């Protein structure tokens, strides 16, 4: 029973990951690509984490898996947002050069 559930969750996760990747490769513009990536991949990761949770050895291990998922969610949401904002600024004619701009704390020379 547990095995079957794990496999089901993993298969679903794989499905969502493939969908997200397909979207990244095939969708026409940056914004929809981000959409595909962040949404589908986060769900896929969540399902995979859930499958692993079923096999967690202890509550501490389970909490770690949960924490990893949360952090990955935060990271992908933030980076998705940043890319989207860049994209928006760029379409308004702001130069693309800020992408590689070094951190502001470091002054010239």
């Amino acid at each position, binding site marked *: 029973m547990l095995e079957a559930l794990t496999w089901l969750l993993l298969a679903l996760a794989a499905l969502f990951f493939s969908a997200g990747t397909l979207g990244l490769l095939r969708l026409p513009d940056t914004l929809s690509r981000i959409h595909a990536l962040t949404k589908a991949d986060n769900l896929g990761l969540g399902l995979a984490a859930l499958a692993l949770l079923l096999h967690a050895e202890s509550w501490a291990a389970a909490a770690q898996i949960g924490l990893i998922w949360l*952090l990955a969610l*935060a*990271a992908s949401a*933030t980076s998705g*947002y*940043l890319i989207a*904002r860049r994209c928006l600024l760029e379409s308004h004619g702001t*130069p*693309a*050069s*800020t*992408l*590689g*701009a*070094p*951190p*502001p*704390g*470091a*002054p*010239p*020379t």
Partner: protein
Amino acid sequence: MNATDLLLALALLLLAGSALLARSVQIASVLFIAFGLLLALVWVRLGAPDVALAEAAIGAGVAGALLMLAASEFESRRIGGSRAAGPRLPWPRPQGWRPRWALVLLALACAAVLLLAVLAIEPLAGAATEAVARNLPQSEIAHPVTAVLLSFRAYDTLLEIAVLLVAVVAVQAAPAPPQRALAHDPVLARVAAITVPLALLVALYLLWAGSSRSGGAFQAGAVLAGAVLLARFASLPLDPQSRLTRPPVLALGLALFILIGLVAGALAGAALGYPSGWVKPLVLAIEAALMVSIGATLVALFGGSKTA
């Protein structure tokens, strides 16, 4: 041979090849980062989690980011901010390669000979490996990799930190081009405010764990550098005057390493040795100083300058 390894190996080669042939260096460096992360997985498969941590943090992360930073700077300046004209190809097209067939043939021949050689070598159990296992209790360090890095072959590590410092001194001698400030972003600032303390915590954990498990000063230093850089991107008030990248901080780790190596070494009867019973605190002190200096070094390599 199992299917997972085969798949991993093929993906690794594919990523390496496409990184080298990519249309632009920006794309190449993104592919290189992916390559490095996959390589970290391979290290885990081969039973080397310490290497995997170092690869993911330093090999893939820092190297890839440095290359990407430079590539996007080149691109933005060369064509005045607008993207390159011309069709975007679905598959990277090799550009700028002058087929020098003699060299290609030579390299191919070398690789073939190399492959034959590595297949012919019968790996020996090895005097060094056995010696590590035998002497581990005497070294008073629980984790074998840490014991090699900071006791058995501490001299290598010391010189390697010197190499890192030489790179920083040389990098600071060639000043970075003027840098544009990143606009303050409320969302990034909020996320960073949560992530940066967490990253600092992880760095400390990695440092502490290094004595008994995978982890250590290098991995911790890389995480520390990541935290500082993230704080900078988000304009958080961590290291606001670039105190971290000033010479005394950069030199701290190596200086303490040399000092302990000589003073404790004199007591122990051999340079870079530790008197028995003092190993754990001394190694931890060295690792802590190294973590700070390595973190500062990596930040400095990204563009901090001496006189902030």
